[in-house]
């Protein structure tokens, strides 16, 4: 027993490392991907990748956006990500494009980022400085955003310019790449270490001189910016303004994050895991729709896979810990 | 010197190894004895104490608790407690107190069943049980309904000790009980420990204060690299020898 675990510990293969970083999700991803490609080669042909990614993009974006706030730990979570995407969608399509006639990407993209950052800053201020429990604070902004969105947008309307539509088709990878690029930049900064330190043990981080409230505040701003981008992806996909779609993304996004091995207690996991979790959920939906399964069964399957996956990750963790102790 | 009516009890470690490839050892703690555990931080003494409490399965060998008659093998913490073992953890804040709860709650939580009358906790019974230890340990707490965090570290420790004394333990395992405790409280605690030993309780005390175990204990076990390195008692028990053993010097 000892000999076996020792030898695996000495040779940490890439699969092992992936497993440790993101849990059970990559394996699930692989299985689902193979299943999808085999069952539906047309849909998954390389020529369709753009559209396919465009379909999955809002969910992936929402999951990526949810991650930074969660990484900050001590109950850090942003349940307003979904409504924020809807708010961006409403402002961009209804106010900017339809009413003000502004359709230049050089106006719309910065505006979306700015709205995201602003809402994120409000969340961050409430959670980190006013010190309201994050789930309650962001629940407050959730309700405000849904309310305001439905007020300015009582029913779906509008259309989007051609350049934005491209982001749900051939250019669909661009916004996601942008998020990863921003995150890649953040990882080069000392801020990233501070965030992870705060997430795993905020008291120790504070004693070591980390400005814990500031670190948490900024994590919500980053979450907001990412949610702004995700809002654009959603807008590109639905091609109009619709106040009812976005809020549903919140809970799925959090599921995706957990599925991707990001600890909801903070300090562990990353964007890659969140993305893998989100893609898994998308592929589950995809494969089940293919079987012509009703959305009801789809829901059971989706819930069951989520529960089983996080259980397996936990059991995996436990076995690993036991092996290390011996 | 076991108390009348109480057959002499003993806690025995037989062929116990603390880590893989480490030399096993046997050791018996008798009723009425105070045994000290010492060693540089992380050299196995804490592991030993926790193994005695059933918090870790031993790497090899076994821990046997007996109250006079046939012994029982210690297989877990709750089972150990049922056989009269009590364990006071090291980090008061992390694993001892319930910061949101009152002094009374903190005291009674591990023996809460004893206050139940007709399904409900009798406040009176709880208060009376607490009063006894309040006097015995001279806990300085004006109002037992105040949150435990209102007390000084030393008094918090006394409440935690009372929590376990309320169990009437035969074996009291103490993990650095005077850590972060003021001098006056220490003297009180020493008095209590000696009194308990006279009543026939076996005490095992892990301490980072060498003076403390030298004056308090009948016997001191010094651990080094997860092995029992030396056992000092009687004339051989003094600070210099304990320190020497901690650093691996044979006398």
């Amino acid at each position: 027993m000892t000999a076996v675990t020792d030898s695996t510990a000495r040779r940490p293969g890439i699969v092992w490392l992936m497993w440790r970083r993101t849990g059970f999700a990559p394996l699930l991803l692989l299985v689902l991907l193979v299943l999808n490609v085999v069952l539906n080669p047309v849909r998954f042909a390389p020529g369709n990748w753009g559209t396919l990614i465009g379909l999955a993009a809002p969910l992936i974006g929402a999951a990526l956006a949810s991650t930074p706030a969660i990484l900050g730990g001590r109950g850090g979570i942003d349940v307003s990500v979904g409504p924020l995407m809807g708010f961006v969608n409403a402002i961009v399509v209804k106010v900017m494009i339809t009413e003000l006639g502004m359709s230049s990407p050089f106006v719309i993209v910065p505006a979306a980022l700015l709205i995201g950052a602003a809402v994120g800053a409000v969340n961050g201020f409430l959670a980190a400085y006013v010190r309201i429990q994050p789930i309650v604070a962001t629940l407050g902004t959730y309700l405000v955003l849904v309310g305001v969105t439905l007020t300015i947008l009582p029913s779906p309307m509008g259309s989007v310019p051609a350049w934005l539509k491209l982001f749900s088709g051939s250019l669909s990878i661009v916004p996601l790449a942008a998020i990863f690029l921003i995150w890649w930049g953040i990882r080069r900064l000392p801020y990233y270490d501070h965030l992870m330190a705060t997430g795993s043990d905020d008291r120790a981080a504070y004693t070591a001189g980390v400005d814990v409230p500031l670190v948490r505040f900024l994590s919500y701003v980053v979450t907001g910016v990412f949610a702004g981008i995700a809002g654009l992806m959603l807008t590109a996909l639905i091609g109009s303004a619709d106040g009812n779609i976005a809020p549903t993304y919140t809970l799925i996004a959090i599921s995706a994050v957990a599925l991707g091995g990001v600890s909801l207690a903070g300090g562990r996991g990353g964007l890659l895991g969140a993305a893998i979790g989100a893609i898994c959920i998308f592929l589950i939906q995809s494969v089940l729709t293919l079987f012509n399964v009703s959305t009801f069964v789809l829901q059971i399957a989706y819930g069951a896979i989520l529960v089983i996956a996080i259980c397996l990750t936990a059991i995996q963790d436990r076995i690993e810990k036991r092996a290390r102790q011996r | 010197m076991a108390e009348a009516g109480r057959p002499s009890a003993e806690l025995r470690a037989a062929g116990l190894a603390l880590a893989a490839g480490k030399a096993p050892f046997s050791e018996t703690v008798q009723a009425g004895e105070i045994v000290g555990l010492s060693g540089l931080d992380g050299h196995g003494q804490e592991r030993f104490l926790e193994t005695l409490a059933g918090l870790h399965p031993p790497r090899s060998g076994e821990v046997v608790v007996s109250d006079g008659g046939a012994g029982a093998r210690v297989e877990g913490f709750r089972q150990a407690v049922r056989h009269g073992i009590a364990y006071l953890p090291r980090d008061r804040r992390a694993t001892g107190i319930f910061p949101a709860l009152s002094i009374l709650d903190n005291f009674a939580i591990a023996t809460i069943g004893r206050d139940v009358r007709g399904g409900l906790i009798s406040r009176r019974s709880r208060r009376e049980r607490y009063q006894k230890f309040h006097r015995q340990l001279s806990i300085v707490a004006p109002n037992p309904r105040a949150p435990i965090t209102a007390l000084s570290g030393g008094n918090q420790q006394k409440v935690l000790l009372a929590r376990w004394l309320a169990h009437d333990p035969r074996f009291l395992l103490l993990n650095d009980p005077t850590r972060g405790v003021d001098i006056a409280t220490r003297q009180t605690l020493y008095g209590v420990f000696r009194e308990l030993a006279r009543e026939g309780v076996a005490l095992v005390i892990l301490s980072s204060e060498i003076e403390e175990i030298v004056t308090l204990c009948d016997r001191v076990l010094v651990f080094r690299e997860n092995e029992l390195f030396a056992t000092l008692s009687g004339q051989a028990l003094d600070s210099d020898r304990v320190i020497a053993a901690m650093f691996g010097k044979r006398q």
Partner: protein
Amino acid sequence: MRVHLNSTGARVAGAILIAVLLFLAGSALIEGYSSAFSIRAMLVLACLLAVACVGQTLTIIIGGIDLSIPFVIGFANVVAAQLYGDGMNFVLVCAIVGVLALGIGALNGAISAGLNLHPLIVTLGIGTIVQGAVLVWTRGFPSGSAPEAVTKFVSIGGSVGPIPVPWLIPAFIALSVVIIVVLNRTPYGRRLFALGSNPRAAALALINPLRMWIVTFALSAFFAAVAGVLLLGFTGSAYGDVGQPYLFQTIAAVVIGGTALVGGRGSFLGTVAGAVVLTQINTLLIGLGLQPSLVQAALGLVIIVLVSLYGREAHVRATI
């Protein structure tokens, strides 16, 4: 003094004070706000919410959270209607629904505590499965209705003898007393607070975390099921999404009532006050003529303001 201001008692008092102030404000601003009918309606709505909040209070005190409550409410609502509609004895129906709910909740608790997983995600996953299962069973079209007795029990126009409130109100008061006594005066209640206050110390103080979590989450689902059956009586017909507004409302009511999300502190009396506050804010805003969407936005603002008044957490500095 500072300790005193942060204590649970002060928070509960704060929530009750706000409920009273809201009532005075409503009476001054809106005609008919303090009419007998309006008060009865608010009482019934607040009671229904508070029943759904029982479990949320318990699971939050233990240091968790239960997001499956709305799904279990919907489950109980639909299953009870369906079975009763099929001609089953209603007592038997309630027994089946209750036992199933206890099982769902026990599973939530067992997975969360047994594998040390965040209950937020576990209850969300289990809740999704439950909702899907109900949809599959009813093919998305639930049918059936509530028996007369349940409808009367929760009817706003009902009366208890000469007192013009439905039986729900006195029954709920009795339930509240039982819950408060259980929390304060039974080993289960004290262990619940202890476990929420310091899980690592709890195991060393002979508290079995797994058992506590299973019992607590089972109770949570049970009371969600009770709320689901009561809502069936209230609305008259089955509706799978009837519990959805309760997802966030239960959390908001518990927090407004002074229960800390980090566990170990809280009270059910506070939760009841929180439910009354939420119901009043809703009524008040609708009474002021706001659109439903704006009511929601205002509710969000009010929650933030209220919680920032007295529901703040300690600075990390203070936890060292």
